[in-house]
């Protein structure tokens, strides 16, 4: 182990199965206690803890050879996890590899759902927490700031986040290709099952107008409508009131179709200029397949949506080479600046970054003291 330097230690979905990750995940209470202990580790100059459902990672700057071992020991003790067992699932990288890993994580290309953007917020939160508690210094401030810039660059200049990879979000994307902005759209959810609920939530999260739930059990429709802040419709009225809606999500467990071709024809007669979009997530199918032949009517079933989701995933996969290359260039450039300094000068003691956002922190970090100025990388 290098006497000092930037490191990451932990476990991720790549190195540990779900059952192990469950045991490694930090509770809020343990997280707080562990941070207090890590602050006292001799030689650990800066550190950040990234704790998500798919990874527990400690990023830090070690000033002596035992600092990383002490981090591992403290973590295992708090989690009551055998160090020997932990080493089977351990991710441990140093220097350039650790920086490259952080850039990959922040960009979402190390995520289980490739290209997801939630991780970016989680990394930012982890950094902000460490910063607020005074656990970061010039090196982490710089490295994390660069990681955020790299993640934004990759998102903008590649298609890594293009096209959704979940069925519910693909359905919402399709609705946008038909209706544009969704705030004026009216959605009818047929069935109160889990997949329908997820799709309805995806629509709501993307600004859909109104949502109405119709289920064969009216009380279940009322219950879900309350949860989703929607309205409920008696199931038997679904066909006669079809023209009032723009998007119909079918997710019942009915043995046959619940929306007939004749009903859709009648609805389109009443609203010929406005398209009607059917998302059939049910098996057996809820919507008569012949409606796809009607003008201005679009029907997508579960297979269609899954196929598009898979195509999007494949497209993201094909972008990873480009992303890794872009990120690697940035990681190397960063390492060229901080690597020699970490080894030749060592780093200063932990200095709390004075600002809450990474850019401001970095700017401030560069100008606090001569030491931090010397450590900063331009």
């Amino acid at each position, binding site marked *: 182990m290098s006497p000092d330097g930037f490191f990451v230690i932990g476990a991720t979905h790549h190195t540990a199965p779900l059952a192990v990750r469950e045991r490694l995940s930090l509770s809020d209470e343990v997280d707080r206690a562990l941070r207090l202990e890590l602050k006292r580790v001799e030689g650990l100059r800066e550190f950040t803890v990234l704790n998500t459902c798919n990874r527990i990672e400690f990023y830090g700057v070690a000033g002596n050879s035992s600092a990383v071992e002490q981090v591992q020991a403290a973590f295992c003790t708090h989690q009551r996890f055998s160090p020997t067992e932990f080493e089977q699932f351990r991710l441990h990288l140093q220097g350039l590899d650790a920086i490259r890993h952080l850039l990959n994580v922040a960009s979402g290309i190390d995520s289980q759902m490739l290209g997801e953007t939630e991780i970016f917020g989680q990394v930012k939160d982890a950094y902000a927490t460490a910063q607020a508690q005074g656990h970061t210094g010039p090196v982490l401030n710089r490295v994390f700031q660069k990681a955020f810039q790299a993640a934004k660059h990759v998102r903008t200049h590649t298609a890594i986040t293009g096209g959704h990879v979940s069925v519910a979000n693909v359905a919402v994307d399709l609705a946008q290709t038909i209706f544009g902005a969704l705030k004026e759209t009216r959605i009818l959810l047929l069935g109160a099952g889990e997949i329908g609920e997820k799709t309805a939530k995806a629509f709501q999260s993307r600004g859909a107008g109104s949502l109405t739930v119709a289920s064969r059990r009216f009380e279940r429709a009322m219950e879900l409508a309350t949860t989703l802040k929607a309205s409920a419709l008696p199931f038997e009225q679904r066909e006669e009131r079809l023209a009032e809606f723009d998007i119909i999500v079918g997710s019942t467990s009915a043995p046959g179709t619940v929306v007939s071709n004749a009903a859709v024809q009648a609805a389109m007669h009443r609203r010929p200029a*406005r398209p009607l979009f059917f998302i059939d997530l049910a098996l057996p199918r809820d919507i008569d397949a012949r409606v796809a032949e009607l003008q201005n009517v679009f029907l997508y079933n579960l297979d269609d949506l899954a196929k598009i989701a898979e195509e999007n995933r494949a497209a993201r996969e094909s972008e990873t080479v480009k992303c890794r290359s872009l990120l690697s260039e940035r990681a190397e450039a960063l390492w060229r600046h901080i690597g020699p300094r970490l080894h030749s000068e060592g780093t200063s003691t932990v200095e709390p970054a004075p600002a809450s956002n990474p850019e401001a922190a970095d700017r401030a970090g560069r100008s606090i003291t001569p030491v931090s100025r010397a450590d900063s990388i331009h």
Partner: protein
Amino acid sequence: MFAGLTDRSWLWIAAGFYLAGLILGTVALLRGERQSKTLVNGIILFGYVCQLVGLYARGRVVGGCPLGNSFEIFQFTAWSAISLYLVVGVTFRSSLLGYFTSCLAAVLTLTSLAIPAWDATRRSKIFGGNPWIELHASLALFSYGVFALLALTALMLVLRHYSLKTKQIGGWFSFLPSILDLDQISVRLLCTGVILMTASLAGGAVYWLRDPSSVNVLKLLVTVAVWLAYALALTLRLRGHLLAKRFAWTCLALFGAALISLGPVDASRHPPVLAQPPNVVPR
């Protein structure tokens, strides 16, 4: 001449910009990349300014709106379409309308420049020195520019319907605007075109009623037929009888017919006094 260049030189430069827009857009589409809207609009704007200068230079020499031969008519139609695009098209989130507009402008301008016969002769004094007739003619051609832009949005609507019906939404189909957006802009363009053409025909009718022999019958019939066809399409669309793909195909077919009609309209102009076009580079 303007700034040391002939009108045709300015129009060649403009066509070069439109061609650059076409090439860059095609490369971006083939690579599956989203084209920069700023770049597309910048190229179109530069082309537009050069074309404006070229048409202005030509107009100054001929002493009126340059609509004296097929070359000038194609140039003016392309200029009209771009004018309208710069007003309404730039608000589109997608850069694809800009790409299609630069394609259309490149085709119209390069075709007119590449056929020397279209600009070998021009009718002089076609408006008899009457600015109102000149306004009538320029309004009519401006409406053709609007219909050209309508044809582009209709083409995009056809492609969007095709992609959704065949469930191919990736690749460059993903750059197309939504069906509702395309439908709304198409209806607005159709309304605008019909209003402009109606105003143009109303203006022309005043002079025709005063002197029926001043307007060629073929020109009158063709122009009224084009106007009627577009007005009928608008009526059917507003009444909900001509929708979605059929509406889009109708707009495309009507524009094709309108372009073809320009030939007989131009040939039947009165009086057919032939003259050498100004500033024509020797061919």
